[in-house]
């Protein structure tokens, strides 16, 4: 049944960060939030939270305006030419004003990096719906949140800076503070209580599981190949299909490979979470990582790897497992320090069904899927919840330390930066692509330590995207605006953007997009007894029609045609008209007509029946047959025929009958 064309799909874009998306899709009568990523780059404007009292950081001079006024010197500190906010770090939330978030029915999470804003949404907006995510996503997402809360809460900071956020004040500040957007909406980190409450609203799903939403749409998570439990989502009704691709990878790392086939035949493909470093090939970067690590350690230096407690670290450890013996580094200790280090390493080993085939098959041997188990067993890799406690007893140098947070603003990494920053023997290797390493290092300047930037981002690059699009052939592609032009730093690289036909529609933060397709059909069920009564008539080969009179029953977005209520005394009549005659209130149905009138034959027929002086005029929509003598017009158009004559009913009926001869009736 053709649908009301007004009920188009809309996309509300709440985040401008292409890899930390947060969009709301209004589709049929549902409101679906796709991911709720938290933009943590805002923390780069804040001073690091030192785990151990740092005289350097606590003695930084306050910042004063050019005119000498010092009213901000409590809030803003200066460090080697940069100005930082001296308060608890704050995060930039997704847009909350664009749409009433209490109307959101469900939230679909694609991977654990894209759910960090969840507590803000579920706990403070009146949200009453359900969140869907896979089990590893929830478990590792919880670890990431737990770590973040822990990092921030264990360094209590009384001060909360707000003066600088005043618009008139912010104008006067140096970059990048001056250019920071929507600072008034920045929020402090959530609490563990909020995290627990938010996570309790999550319902676990498995790949390819079909979830009905109010009977209107069906959503399905598909493996996306990027991280443990990471998914793309298909949102479909009977006649429309939207694919949401977020953070996918075609490389063979640890997760299950990406399911591409199921993305085929989409009307709209929403594409987010591509690699943030399109020019860096992860293999080359891993090589670079290993080489620099070995060079540093051989010279007696220490290596610091700021990282998240899950994800690429598994691959790095696996790579190092193979490399350390060849590089003669077997005696070098590797430390993994995070409040959730233990859980992360253990979780990775138990989610076998979410792993790539290679690792899955190890489980049957039985062997742990990841070799870091062996590193731990042989004491090469040791993990600690924090630098306090056991770690300080075991600590040996030179060593390699993996610890968070990659922004260098909180967590144990702050301590190591302070500890090792002064020696040029040491190296900090950045592998997480989420933060600009130069900005991350700014509050530690001047720094003698070597810095190596090997961002490892396994998400799709543009070549892979163009192959993927060729493969799945969506009708329309929608993506963040950043993907529709080359990166600003490499404006000539026309290969570093999405190139597809028709061109991708782009969105930016706080934009509402009408998605470019109209819903045209709705599926309606016919009750069996009603269907039984239909007598189709073939009107041309292969096409049969039947008239149906029924009651349309609509509930929960399901439409059903039911037989109309029966009258008490059915009159028997010709069988094929029974249906219409059953309805007492119904007007007597005229037979339906179909077919078209061939003008020439029609004119001949008219002549045969004694009409003369016939003129035919072509019009834009058909023909006009003019019976000049009778002063009568017959208008023949594609979907209508009019006989216009002056009060001569007999003539009209004659002409009508002649017209009807050319048409089929049923």
């Amino acid at each position, binding site marked *: 049944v053709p649908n009301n064309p007004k009920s188009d799909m809309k996309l509300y874009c709440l985040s401008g960060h292409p890899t930390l998306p947060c969009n709301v899709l209004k589709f049929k009568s549902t409101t679906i939030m796709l991911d709720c990523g938290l933009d943590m780059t805002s923390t780069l404007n804040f001073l690091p939270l030192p785990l151990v009292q740092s005289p350097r950081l606590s003695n930084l001079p306050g910042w004063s305006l050019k005119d000498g006024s010092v009213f901000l010197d409590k809030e803003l500190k200066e460090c080697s030419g940069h100005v930082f906010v001296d308060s608890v770090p704050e995060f930039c939330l997704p847009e909350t004003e664009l749409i009433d978030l209490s109307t959101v029915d469900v939230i679909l999470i694609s991977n654990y990096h894209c759910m960090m804003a969840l507590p803000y949404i579920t706990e403070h907006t009146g949200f009453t719906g359900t969140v869907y995510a896979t089990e590893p996503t929830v478990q590792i997402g919880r670890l990431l949140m737990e770590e973040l809360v822990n990092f921030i809460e264990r360094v209590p900071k009384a001060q909360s800076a707000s003066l600088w956020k005043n618009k008139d004040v912010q104008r006067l500040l140096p970059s990048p503070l001056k250019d920071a957007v929507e600072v008034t909406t920045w929020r402090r980190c959530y609490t563990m209580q909020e995290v627990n409450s938010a996570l309790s609203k999550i319902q676990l799903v498995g790949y390819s599981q079909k979830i009905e939403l109010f009977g209107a749409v069906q959503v399905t998570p598909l493996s996306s190949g990027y991280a443990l439990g990471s998914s793309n989502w298909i949102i479909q009704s009977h006649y429309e299909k939207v694919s949401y691709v977020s953070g996918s990878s075609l490389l063979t790392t640890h997760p299950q490979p990406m399911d591409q086939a199921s993305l085929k035949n989409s009307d709209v493909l929403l594409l987010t979470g591509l690699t943030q470093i399109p020019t860096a090939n992860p293999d080359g970067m*891993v090589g670079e990582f290993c*080489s620099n690590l*070995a060079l540093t350690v*051989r010279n007696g230096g220490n290596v610091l790897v700021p990282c998240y407690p899950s994800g690429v670290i598994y691959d790095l450890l696996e790579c190092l497992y193979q490399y350390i013996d*060849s590089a003669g580094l077997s005696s070098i200790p590797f430390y993994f320090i995070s409040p959730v280090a233990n859980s992360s390493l253990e979780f990775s080993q138990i989610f076998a069904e979410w792993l790539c085939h290679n690792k899955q098959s190890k489980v049957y041997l039985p062997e742990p899927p990841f070799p870091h188990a062996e590193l731990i067993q042989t004491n090469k890799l040791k993990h600690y919840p924090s630098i306090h406690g056991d770690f300080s007893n075991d600590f040996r140098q030179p060593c390699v330390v993996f610890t968070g947070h990659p922004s260098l603003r909180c967590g144990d990494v702050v301590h190591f930066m302070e500890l090792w920053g002064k020696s040029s023997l040491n190296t900090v290797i950045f592998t997480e692509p989420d933060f600009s390493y130069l900005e991350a290092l700014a509050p530690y300047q001047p720094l003698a330590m070597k810095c190596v930037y090997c961002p490892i981002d396994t998400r799709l690059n543009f070549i892979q995207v163009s192959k993927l699009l060729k493969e799945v052939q969506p009708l329309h592609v929608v993506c963040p605006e950043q993907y529709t032009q080359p990166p600003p730093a*490499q404006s000539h690289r026309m*290969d570093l953007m999405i190139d597809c036909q028709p061109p991708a529609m782009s969105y930016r933060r706080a934009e509402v997009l009408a998605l470019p397709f109209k819903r045209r059909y709705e599926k309606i069920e016919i009750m069996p007894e009603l269907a039984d009564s239909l007598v189709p008539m073939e009107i041309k080969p292969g096409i049969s029609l039947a008239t149906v009179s029924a009651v349309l029953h609509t509930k929960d977005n399901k439409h059903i045609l039911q037989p109309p209520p029966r009258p008490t005394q059915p009159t028997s009549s010709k069988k094929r008209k029974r249906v219409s005659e059953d309805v007492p209130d119904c007007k007597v149905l005229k037979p339906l007509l179909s077919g078209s009138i061939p003008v020439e034959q029609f004119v001949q027929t008219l002549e045969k029946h004694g009409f003369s002086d016939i003129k035919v005029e072509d019009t834009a929509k058909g023909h006009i047959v003019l019976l000049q003598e009778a002063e009568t017009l017959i208008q023949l158009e594609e979907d209508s025929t009019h006989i216009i004559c002056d009060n001569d009913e007999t003539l009209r009926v004659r002409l009508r009958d002649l017209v009807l001869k050319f048409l089929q009736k049923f």
Partner: protein
Amino acid sequence: PRCTFWTLVPAADGHQEWDSNSRLARSRGVAFSYLAVGGKDRRTSVLIMDPECSRLLPALCAVLADPRQPVADDTCLEKLLDWFKTVTETESSLQLLQDHPCLVELLSHVLKPQDVSPRVLSFALRLAGAFAAQEDCFQYLQQGDLLLGLFGEAGALGWSAWSIPSVRSGWIQGLCALAHHPSALHFLADSGAVDTVFSLQGDPSLFVASAASQLLVYILALSMQGRDAGSPIPEVAAWPVCAQKIVSHVQESLHSTAAPQVTQALNVLTTTFGRCRSPWMEVLWGQLSPLVASLLKRDPIPAAHSLVDLLLSVARSPVLSSAACGPWEILAQTLHRLSPTQAGPLALGTLKLQRCPQELRTQAFGILLQPLACILKATAQAPGPPGLLDGTAGGSMTVDTLLSSKSACVGLLCQTLAHLEELQTLPQCPSPWPQEPLLDAAVIILRLCDGSADPSSSGAGRLCGTLAGCIRVQRAALDFLGTLSQGMSPQESMLQVFAILLKNLESPESSPTVLKKAFQATLRWLQSSVKTSGCSDLSPDALLFLGELFPVLQKRLCSPCWEVRDSALEFLTHLSQHWGGQADFREELQSSEVPMLACQLLQDPESYVRASAVAATGQLFSRGLQATPTSSENLQAQQGLLMDLMYILSTDSEGFPRRAVLQVFTQWLRDGHADVARDTEWFVTTVLQAVSRDLDWEVRVQGLELVQVFLTQTLGRFRPRCPYAVTLPEATSPTPHPEFLRTLCRLPLFEFVFRALFDCDRPVAQKACDLLLFLRDETAPSSGPQETRDGPNSASVEVALQRWQEGEQGQPLGDLEPEAMLALLRSLDLEGLQGKLAKSSDHIEKSPQSLLQDMLATVGMLEENEADCY
């Protein structure tokens, strides 16, 4: 099984070759030596029909004719055919057939093909052809209509086995073999075989199709035979019928609209013009060249590759290139008409011609340069670069190809770069050579590949997108860049080159193969910088470059990818070989951690890397460039390396590192390196103890090489000769210095060499034999065997040797007195042994008798042993 490696001989010199496929090259070297040995040997072995073979032949023929006894595999039939061919080369085929009626019986039996396997059928066809190559034998076979039965229309063509390609192939090869005399020509004309050959040109089997074309060329040449002398060549219309038939078939095919037919015709012509140099070819070309030229008017040009081959074949032919209807005009047209990718090989071929009009050379060179000119034009910020490339830009076809698709662009660029690279090294290299623009082009291509180019035009933007990260183009461009180092380049260009090389060496995105090419190119440019600076020192630019190179090398030596570590080590070896003596270089190297890292790689898990590390540290050590710069530890460190290498030699599980160690040791001994010279006897003893237990024959050969160096040096020490002395060398052979002999006997040297003499690997035995001959000539040249057996313990030694020869290696040789040693040397028939060793050890197994026996023997056991390998 004891002689697994007997055919292998060591690569001529063992040092690490600077070759992209050094491992491959080494193993190829081995393969070639095998062929050489095998080939030589076959000629020397007994190949005539001896009585034993005559006796075996009837049984064999019976087996072949019996369909119930299938032949094991094709290879023995091939060997059998080879043998018959050799026999017919030296003996009369007719005689052979008359002496062995079983052969004719076999051929007659084949006429009833339902009873014969296709393998035997194909074999018989070729055998018949080989016999019929001699005219009298041809007549003999014709008498029984045997040939007509095999090759005529009623013959093979009607068999059901004709559908099997090997039978068709055998038919053609048989005809090829017999087409050697006028009678054969008549036979071919009468039997209708030529028409069949025409149709076989389009055979689905490529081997058959190509053989058919070859056969046509044979027949054409045969029918024109004898027409060259004296009288002028008539027009084609007056040629023999057979030749006319072939020519008109070729003409028809050239007219055809089907590309495969045109290809066939062109291939026949190419082979014809490439094979013969007779004057009649001029007539043929005169008749056909308008047809060939008309192909150019078609769109698209059919069979462009074959056309290129034909034109080059014509241009190379001395008869045709100087003829009135020479190929130059049509060559020029073709160059103009073909697409850039097709024109490239033609242009290169044209430039390689010995004689060629200058105008055409200019055109061809322009075509080769065009893609690079387009790249320069698309990417140039300033107005185009000066030089030869000016006139060549703007080829719209080239631009279209470059921009059309990634594969077209990459293909054209790689081809162009390879062609120009090849051209530059040839004597025909065009002059003036546009060195600077070509350098710019190579650099800009590399920058397009690594994404660092800053394109100004949209075309360049597209190129950038196409070439970004393209490994194939990167490799080709680096190869080309390396070759360009031979030319003279201005200083700015050198700086540009060093910058791009450094970028490629340093980039984490560079793949191991790209990196290897970058190392090679770097080495060549460093060498060329020496050339330009005029003295053996590195230029200041090169030194600056070195300063940045070592940190990169350091990182590469730590790469997790073993190929990268390996190439970095090889590069280091070559660097220190060339500049190890240079103060600035030494300073840069020693201030880096490179020597220390190289030392650590001696323990690498990958054996190739360990071998390269051995070579590199050995080289550094001999240049005094080893790790640990503090002088107090120097001695210990050096001693440390010697011990490290000894340890590798005696314990490493892989052959490569052990061979590398011996090469280093031999070099050290040769150079008289201090640590070796300090106690040479201890050194040699220790090395030989390790080598004598080694399972790798190459290591043992290398050990003998080391012994030879030691002997030469020791001999020289005891026979001091001043090179400037006026006195003539003594005419009589000198008696050996007693101390020399005592030295030899003190070491386990003889035991080692004698054991090697009976080594199961032939190259080791050969080398040992040569070494003993050298020693005997130096110590006891004039004595005859009659003086022997007077030494105190020579008897026990001889017993030991006897045992060894019989394969019992357990018994030690015991102490040896110099006299006993001398006696032993004299008593051994070293020349005889040398002769025996020179023969391949299967010279018995390779005899025809053995072949026939084996074939007969395998027949019965086929079923149990299907996979039997002959």
